[in-house]
């Protein structure tokens, strides 16, 4: 997959969809293309978050530790992003991500990502918009859940 295809993929990620393609290209160029075989761990719960991953091809499982071993809570498909919370705030990983099939991903390093946000405010506003949107959905969900009780 070439750089320009990766830019296409990034555009389909909601967090990046509003950002202009030249910036996305820079983001893609400065990110590492990484590949994993099935069963390999991208990161572990509790690790320090140093990068976000955009899945380019293949699938991955999101696992959360419990008393009875890891439980799968969600699955990642191409065009999805994982670990973005950890690179925006200094929290540790809240779940483990494991490749479920041969996996290609774009690894966006935290310092690069933050640097880009600082450099290009229009991109930051775009990301803020997406996050605020998410927050309002979560709040709405929470209200629904509370009132349903």
């Amino acid at each position, binding site marked *: 997959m070439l*750089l320009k295809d990766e830019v296409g993929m990034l555009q389909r990620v909601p967090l990046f969809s509003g950002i202009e393609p*030249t910036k996305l290209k*820079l983001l893609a*160029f400065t990110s*590492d*293309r990484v*590949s994993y075989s099935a069963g390999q761990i991208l990161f572990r719960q509790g690790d320090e978050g140093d990068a976000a991953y955009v899945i380019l091809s293949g699938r991955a499982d999101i696992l959360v530790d419990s008393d009875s071993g890891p439980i799968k809570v969600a699955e990642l498909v191409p065009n999805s992003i994982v670990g973005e919370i950890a690179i925006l705030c200094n929290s540790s990983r809240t779940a483990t991500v494991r490749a479920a099939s041969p996996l290609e991903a774009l690894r966006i390093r935290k310092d*690069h990502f933050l640097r880009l946000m600082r450099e290009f405010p229009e991109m930051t506003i775009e990301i803020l918009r997406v996050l605020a949107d998410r927050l309002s959905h979560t709040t709405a969900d929470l209200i629904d859940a509370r009132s349903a009780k």
Partner: protein
Amino acid sequence: MEPSLARYIWTHTRKQQLWILMIVVLSMIPYFMSFNLPKLIVNGPIQGGGFEQPGATQPFMRLNYNLPFIGEIQFFSGFQLDRKETLFALSLVFLLLVIVNGLFKLYINTYKGRLGERMLRRIRFDLVDRVLRFPPLYFKRVKSAEVATMVKDEVEPLGGFIGDAFLQPVLLGGQALTAMLFIMVQNFWLGMIAAVIVAIQIVLIPRMRRRLIVLGRQRQLTARALSGRVGEIVDGIGAVHVHDTSNYERADIAARLGLIFKIRFDLYQWKFMVKFLNNFLAQVTPFLFYMVGGYLVIQGRLDVGQLVAVIGAYKDLPGPMKELIDWDQDRQDVQVKYQQVVEQFTVEGLIAPRIGALTIDDPDPMTNPLSAISLSIADDGGAMLLDRISLQVKPGETVALVSTATGGAEALAEAFARLNRPDSGRVASGADDLLELPEAVTGRRMSYASSDVFLFQASLRDNLLYGLKHAPLTSVTYDGAAADQHRWSIAEARRSGNPDLDIHSDWINYASAGATGPHDLFEAVRRVLDAVVLSRDILDLALRSSADLTRHTELARRIVELRAALRTRLEHEGLSGLVVPFEPGAYNKEATIGQNLLFGAAAGPELADKALAANPYFVSVLRQAGLDRTLYEMGMEIAEQAIELFADLPPDHQFFQQLAFMSAEEIPAYETLLQRLKNRPHEAVSESDRAMIVTLSFAYIEPRHRFGLLSDELMSKIVAARNRFYENLPPELQNAVERYDPAKYIAAATVMDNVLFGRVGTNHPDAPDRIRSIVYDILDELGLYAELLDVGLDFNVGSGGRRLTGGQRQKLDVARALLKRPDFLILNRPLSALDQRMQNKVLRNVLEEARRDGHSPAIVWVVTNPAMAAMFDRVIVFDSGQLVEDGTHESLLAGNGIFKELLS
């Protein structure tokens, strides 16, 4: 040191000075003869004196002396020569005297030059010898750069002066006096004129020069302070940048330079003022000679020959006079310099020479307990660090010194290491005062390491073995020219009062490390490095450096085996995808295009980096392979992409690290280049522009950069070009590149690159770590671990060890202390740069390593954390300079004292 320079010189060079004086006196004879000769030539053959009759002859070289009591004796009646012959003969004698005088001068100058250089060597050695014997406290007050500048620069003029110290006044005084006397003999009044002028010079000039001496002293002090400040800036460069004080430093240096400029310019002005006056006085004299002397000739009271001779002799008077006055100035100047230096080097409490005397044989072990007896130590400000402490450390005992912030345990450790002198009380080994023991005992039977580590700018190995280099243990045999050179060195060293110890001898005391020679020393080294957990760091250094193949032959010999083992192992673990190996007939996708083309390591500047694309032979190979246009177009594409991506970023942006093709500074140049070359046919582009563009393509790696520029056809073309490149490699490039050969070690590449013989895939984030640990495993399996460690030991630690981390430096210091296998091991917060977990690990290892093979040294360890005390036989607690608790760990825990408080 001898405070008077003249006496210092006289003491050490008496014989030589007398010899050279004698030669100088001897040289006066032909010198005087050459004065009289012009008169003889002018009055005799030229003006015809004695040749009044045609065909008259005069005796030449007649030797007759009028001896007292015996009367006149004629040894030789001489040749009879006519007027012309006499002219030639006398002129030839003149020439002969010129040659003889010249030869005398040459001999004298050479002799005194050598004398001066020897004395300079002696003074410098004496000074450094004193530095080695300064009491430890003194070093808190001096700047190293100032001491260095005193030894190096300030005594330098002494060397030039020493040869002249006694000689110059005699020689020049003699010459001046000769000239004076000669003038006097010719004509009393002319002589008086010269004498008066000389008297004025002698009185006036030194007076004027007094100011020069004052300025000279100021110049010396300001220059010394400057070098001290420069040294401080270099040492404290971190602090300068951290606090944004570089402009403060600039201001300080500028102010100092301004002051130095002022002093130097003042000096310059005065110097030329004095010179002017001196020259003027010298030139006035001939004026008087012409006037008065001419008047006397006209009056017939002086003949022309005499006047010519007087003027000729006078020509030789101002020279010596001026030099004599210069000499006097030099003398005062050098005396001042010498005094200034001697003052700085005269220190109370200098360590006696016998303490540091050379001892070849190893001393007996220290079997007596080490004790502090009513020991008090104060710091520079007078605050008490230790207040009348008495304690005893028995041989074989392990003691933890626990201290509150103001406890004073560190001062005790320093006192045991003799780095801090007691203000009252004493430290002792048995009944002997520890300070009176020779260093040959304390430096070999005791070891000390602290958090404040000093490493020399040398290899890790040299620094580690430094603690074993007490005395030259072997005598090296030299043959041929080297033997002559060696004999000369020894003789010269003795003449300058330097020791003749051979630096090339083997100084390493293998026995004290528990080894018998170089072959099994490595085992001991490895064990101490393992003990301080430094081996892994050194192995990492080794992998990243290129091995010296003259020393590490084994690595090169078994490289094929190593590479095969790595492949098998990677396959076995299903990791073959991690490394893409170099194969002579295939394109390596994980390597750059440049690496694929060259397929070798550049061993010289001709084919390295940016020079590759401009190398004419390489360019011709690309052309023949039909690659020149393709790579040019590829370079243009890369330039466009890179500029599109990076053009709006500020030049210091960290993303530029990702851009392998060009640096931030080059972007504007490429931008204009791209504008210019766009739409221009390939043929019309100049050679250098082409190279600029093509070189971009050389850094391209498809899987990493993902521009989609590499096709199968291109790859096979590149492999073909690679072969073509090596087929016709011109002889001048034979040594500029080492071709990748699966069966050969590449000297110009790092050890890691050699073992891998390929490139690690870019898309496996943890690949480098996994591969490194696999490589270590393999090296260990093949028995090459020691060899690799040895490669790592070649690493140069940099100035003050700054190429190592603080933790690594401290570990190395502990390893160095351990390697000696001492009877008393004193460790003063030795691992403060490490985290607690690592400190505990090293502590455990060190205790174990120190007691290996039935050794049982006493260990005194000032711990950074009271919890560490649990591993020791005995715990001593200090608070406010007092010893407050002393006992086993258990007993102190059971008590309710400070120790328990510190632990909680």
